[in-house]
């Protein structure tokens, strides 16, 4: 059930320059799925539109959501000023999630789509996956890694993350739930270059890819997945107004005719944000 509500900030700290880590107490956490997002609304009435922010983590009791975001403008700058006890306006939880894109209900591990024949434990056990994150696309990989630990062995969850420099935020959290490989643009940590370079340097392989990050990275992953003939599920981003599928602001070109407007335009907020890479035309 989607809901707009006023929640309470539990804590917030800056974990890298301009990158903030905020926990919010909200019952929306009970339904949150890895890859979903929430819309956060600034209180300044000159900035009306929601800021879509991915869910980084859900606490053990499912009573709080963790959002890790970068200051990108006026709205996120306002959020960065929130302290424990402050109110925060959110709408959630939104979008389909990574495992839902595969056809699995991430809350139960059961099948949710006709073309899927096996439940999550059978699908993932004994297999290898890549969880690839670039920059501010890294946060949603944490909850996904945590979730996949329920269905597969930790050392088969290969988390490949790309940073600009040695500010490797969320690294320790990710290491708890998978085997982490790092790439940095300046070469200060791990492989010098990007996540694709890290795959090559470490000689990694996988049966499935989950990814979130900048468009050039997603394009490279789409090409890699096609070459290796493995499915890749990528999380897309676009400016949004409603977040619930009504305004048709955040569309992506699709290979097949979309079910809403029948014009090869899927709505990122509701049909996504996670899509199988081969289904979307990302250039």
């Amino acid at each position: 059930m989607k809901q707009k509500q006023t929640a309470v900030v539990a804590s917030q700290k800056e974990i890298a320059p301009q990158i903030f880590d905020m926990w919010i107490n909200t019952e929306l956490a009970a339904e949150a799925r890895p890859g979903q997002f929430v819309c956060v609304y600034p209180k300044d009435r000159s900035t009306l539109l929601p800021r879509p922010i991915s869910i980084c983590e859900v606490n053990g009791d499912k009573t709080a959501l963790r959002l890790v975001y970068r200051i990108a403008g006026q709205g996120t700058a306002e959020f960065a000023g929130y302290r424990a006890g402050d109110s925060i306006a959110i709408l959630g939880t939104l979008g389909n999630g990574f495992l839902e894109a595969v056809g699995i209900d991430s809350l139960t591990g059961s099948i949710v789509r006709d073309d899927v024949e096996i439940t999550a434990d059978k699908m993932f056990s004994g297999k290898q996956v890549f969880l690839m994150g670039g920059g501010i696309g890294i946060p949603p990989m944490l909850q996904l890694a945590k979730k996949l630990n329920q269905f597969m062995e930790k050392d088969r969850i290969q988390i490949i993350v790309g940073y600009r420099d040695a500010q490797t935020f969320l690294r320790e959290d990710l290491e708890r739930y998978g085997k982490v490989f790092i790439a940095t643009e300046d070469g200060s940590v791990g492989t010098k270059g990007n996540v694709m370079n890290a795959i090559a340097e470490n000689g990694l392989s996988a049966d499935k890819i989950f990814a979130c990050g900048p468009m050039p990275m997603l394009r490279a992953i789409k090409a890699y997945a096609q070459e290796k003939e493995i499915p890749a599920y990528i999380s897309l981003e676009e400016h949004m107004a409603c977040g619930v599928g009504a305004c048709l602001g955040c569309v992506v070109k699709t290979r097949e005719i979309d079910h809403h407007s029948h014009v090869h335009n899927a709505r990122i907020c509701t049909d996504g944000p996670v899509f199988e890479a081969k289904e979307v035309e990302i250039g």
Partner: protein
Amino acid sequence: MNMQTTIAGIPFKNPVMTASGTFGSGMEYGEFVDLNQLGAVVTKGVANVPWPGNPTPRVAEVYGGMLNAIGLQNPGIDVFLERDIPFLKQYDTKIIVNVCGKTVEDYVDVVEKLGEEPAVAMLEINVSCPNVKEGAIAFGQKADALYHITQELKKHAKQPIIMKLSPNVTDITEMAKAAEAAGADALSLINTITGMKIDIHRRKFAIANKTGGMSGPAIKPIAVRMVYQAAHAVKIPIIGMGGIANAEDAIEFILAGASAVSVGAMNFVNPYTTIEVIKGIEAYMERYHVENLTDLIGAVE
């Protein structure tokens, strides 16, 4: 206390509607709002065939509002009649379908198909979308073109028609009068105001279409002024809209001369806005001992 309002002989349980393009066909917001409570659902524009709309980015934030250039993406009338109308028919609310097109023939095609659907109470003719290159806006910015298309559509429409006016004109009263003279049953205004935003860091337009239609609270004073001017220029009823965020805003439009109001961009900010506006108008009527909502229409002194 009577919240009812009447437009072209059609009674609405209350004056609060949804502005076209901000509410889909109600499916998405049905999760937040009891659609039965609304005076009417005004649907997203529908054309004779599916329209893919514009490239992204399609939306951008501006001070106190937003720009959009969706480009009227829609599934076309056939899918709409099969899917959206049956959905809306489940609810006790009036259905107003927004009709768009590139040529007069396109509009006629849609209007005729909708004529077969008695559940549709009224048609709102979109001659004012600023984001579609061909047709559309041209009909809404020249009084003679507006007169012509209104007259043509009146020949084919089974339901009363509302002409949705563009604010991007020199004199709104000239347009209002042209639509009335051609037989329009009602007017709705304002559509969005053409605007532009430039990302100075990337030196690029904030939306791919370069220009977009501005909506949101920042445009409200312009909208109230135009509703007031139009209401004094014509006798047909007016549905007022433009930046309505709460009941106070809605009441301003009604006092300026609107028989009904639509909530648009603010649905995106607060999905419960329509219901809050209805409740707030009730509270206002109670506070000032207003027996009939219709007593408020044009009641500014």
